[in-house]
C-alpha cells in the first residue's frame, strides 16, 4: 500500500491553508485530495467581494482569495489530486479514495487533516409541505449554476432564509434580470450581516418578511406558487396570515452543516457544532486525525478558516515529528446557556501555549450581556458585550494562568447584566 505522511481531505480554503501550515513546518510528503475539478472549493463560486481583510489586508472576491492560496500551494509544489472522492477513513488512518484515472486507491497515512467543508440544508432537511416540483434549490446550488455555468435558475424567485448566501443570491439574481419577490426568515431577526441586508436587499427594494416561513409549495412539473405565513414564538404558522407569491423558483438559505460523515463513520465524538470534538490543536479523539474549517464548525469569514486551518496544519507537523504531547488529562469545554457551541471541546493545559482560544456562537441576538466562563463551578471571567449576534462567530482569548488545574470543566455561557 502507498504511504503518505499527511493526507488532507479537501482542497478549498481550509485544505490549502492546512497544507501550507504543515509544509512550512517541515512536512514534505503530503497530498491534498479534492472532490471538485479545481482547487479553491466554494470560494470559486463566491464571486462577490468582502474576503481577505484580515488575511491579506485588502478586499478580494472569492476567486481572487482562492488564487492567493493556490499560488501558495504551487510555489511550494504541494501535490494535489482533483476530481477525487474520499470514500472512507479507518482508525488505522488508511484512506480509500477514487477518481477516474486511478480507480479505487488505498493510502496508509501517518496523519490526516479533515477539511471537507460543509453542506447546505435542503428541502428534504426542512420538510416543506406541498408538491415536489422542479425549481426548489439551495442558495449554493443556484450560485454555482449562475456564477460558474451561466444558468439563470429562475425568473420570479422567492428566498427562504436570510443567511448571507441567500441575501447575496437575491442581489445576483436581480442583477441578472430575475425578479426576487421577497425573503422570508423564520426568526424575528435577520441571520445575515447588516452589510448584506443593506447592499443585497434594501438597495434593490426586496422585502424581508421576519417571523415568516414557507408553509406550502405548489406546482406540477415546475414550481408555480409559494405560500408564506407569519409564525408565533414557537415558530408555528399562524392561520389567517398566509400570503401567496407566484414564483417559478424557491431558493433555500436555511443553514449549513459540517460535512463530517467520514469522521462520524469512525465513531469520533462530535461537538454541538456537528463537527468533530477537538482539542486546542484541532486534533480529534483519534491521535493524528485533525479537523479544521467548516467541517469542524461553520465559519462566517474565510479569513478565520485560513488561520484555523494553518494552525491545524502546524499541529499535524508537530504530531509527525512526535512533538505533540499524548493527552493524559484534559479539561472539557462545554456550551452553557445561550451558547450554541464552543470550539475546542477540550483543552490540555500542559501543551496549549500561553493563551486559551475559544470560538463560539450565541443562540440569539443580545445587547448589554456578559460572556461568562465558569471553571469547575467557579466564575473565572466575565466579558461585557454591548452587542452579540448568532451570525458572527466570537473568538476570545483568555490567559492560560486563569486555570489552576488540568482537570474539570469550563462552561461558557451568556448571562444578563444583573446576573
Amino acid at each position, binding site marked *: 500500500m502507498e504511504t503518505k505522511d499527511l493526507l488532507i481531505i479537501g482542497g478549498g480554503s481550509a485544505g490549502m491553508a492546512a497544507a501550507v501550515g504543515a509544509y512550512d513546518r517541515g512536512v514534505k510528503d503530503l497530498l491534498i485530495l479534492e472532490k471538485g*475539478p*479545481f482547487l479553491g472549493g466554494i470560494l*470559486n463560486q463566491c*464571486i*462577490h*467581494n468582502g474576503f481577505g481583510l484580515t488575511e491579506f489586508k485588502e*478586499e478580494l*472576491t472569492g*476567486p*481572487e482569495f482562492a*488564487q492567493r492560496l493556490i499560488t501558495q500551494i504551487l510555489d511550494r509544489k504541494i501535490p494535489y489530486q482533483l476530481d477525487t472522492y474520499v470514500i472512507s477513513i479507518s482508525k488505522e488512518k488508511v484512506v480509500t479514495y477514487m477518481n477516474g484515472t486511478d480507480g479505487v486507491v488505498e493510502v496508509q497515512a501517518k496523519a490526516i487533516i479533515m477539511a471537507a467543508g460543509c453542506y447546505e440544508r435542503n428541502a428534504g432537511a426542512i420538510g416543506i409541505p406541498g408538491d415536489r416540483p422542479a425549481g426548489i434549490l439551495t442558495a449554493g446550488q443556484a450560485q454555482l449554476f*449562475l*456564477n*460558474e*455555468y*451561466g444558468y439563470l435558475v429562475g425568473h420570479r424567485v422567492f428566498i427562504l432564509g436570510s443567511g448571507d448566501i441567500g441575501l447575496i443570491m437575491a442581489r*445576483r439574481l436581480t*442583477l*441578472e434580470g430575475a425578479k426576487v419577490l421577497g425573503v422570508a426568515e423564520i426568526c424575528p431577526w435577520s441571520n445575515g*450581516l*447588516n*452589510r448584506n*441586508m*443593506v*447592499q443585497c436587499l*434594501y*438597495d434593490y427594494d426586496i422585502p424581508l418578511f421576519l417571523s415568516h416561513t414557507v408553509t406550502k409549495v405548489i406546482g406540477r412539473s415546475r414550481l408555480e406558487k409559494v405560500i408564506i405565513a407569519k409564525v408565533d414564538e414557537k415558530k408555528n404558522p399562524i392561520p389567517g396570515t398566509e400570503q401567496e407569491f407566484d414564483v417559478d423558483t424557491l431558493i433555500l438559505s436555511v443553514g449549513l452543516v459540517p460535512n463530517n460523515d467520514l469522521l462520524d463513520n469512525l465513531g469520533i465524538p462530535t461537538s454541538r457544532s456537528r463537527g468533530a470534538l477537538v482539542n486546542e490543536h484541532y486534533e480529534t479523539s483519534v491521535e493524528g486525525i485533525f479537523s479544521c474549517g467548516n467541517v469542524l464548525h461553520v465559519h462566517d469569514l474565510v479569513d478565520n478558516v485560513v488561520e484555523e486551518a494553518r494552525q491545524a496544519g502546524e499541529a499535524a507537523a508537530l504530531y509527525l515529528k512526535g512533538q505533540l504531547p499524548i493527552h493524559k488529562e484534559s479539561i472539557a469545554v462545554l456550551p452553557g446557556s445561550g451558547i450554541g457551541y464552543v470550539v475546542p471541546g477540550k483543552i490540555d493545559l500542559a501543551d496549549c501555549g500561553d493563551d486559551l482560544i475559544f470560538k463560539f456562537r450565541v443562540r440569539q441576538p443580545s445587547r448589554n450581556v456578559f460572556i461568562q466562563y465558569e471553571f469547575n463551578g467557579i466564575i473565572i471571567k466575565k466579558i461585557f458585550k*454591548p*452587542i452579540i*449576534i448568532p*451570525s*458572527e462567530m466570537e473568538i476570545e482569548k483568555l490567559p492560560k494562568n486563569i486555570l489552576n488545574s488540568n482537570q474539570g470543566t469550563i462552561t461558557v455561557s451568556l448571562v444578563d447584566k444583573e446576573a
Partner: protein
Amino acid sequence: MADITLTCIICPRGCRLTVDEHLNVTGNFCPRGIVYGKQEVTNPTRVVTSTVRIDRAALPLCPVKTAQPIPKKKIFDVMSSINEVHLTAPVAIGDVVITDVAGTGVALVVTRNMEKIP
C-alpha cells in the same frame, strides 16, 4: 429634502441612522456612523461583481469586478456593459476587460485566472 433613514453597516450593531437635509447624522452609537451616513446620502457607491462569457476556458463564464466602487445609481448601466463582453482564454486576475465601464471612469477587471483548454 426629507430626512433619510438608513442602517449603518460598519459593525454588527447596525444603528438606525437618520440624516437630515443639513447632513446631520443622528442615531449613531459611534463616530463611524456619521462618516458612513454622510457618504451613503451624498454619494453612495458599490463595487459591482458579476461574470462575463469566455471561450476556450474550462468554464463558460469568467468572474469580473469594478476595480473601484462605482456610483450606486450606475449599477444597472454597469451590468448592461458587462453583458456585452465576450472574452477568450487565457485571462488572468487584474486583466482589464473595459477601461471605463458605463462612463464611471472605473475599469472592469478579471477576478479569476482561466487557462486556455487544449
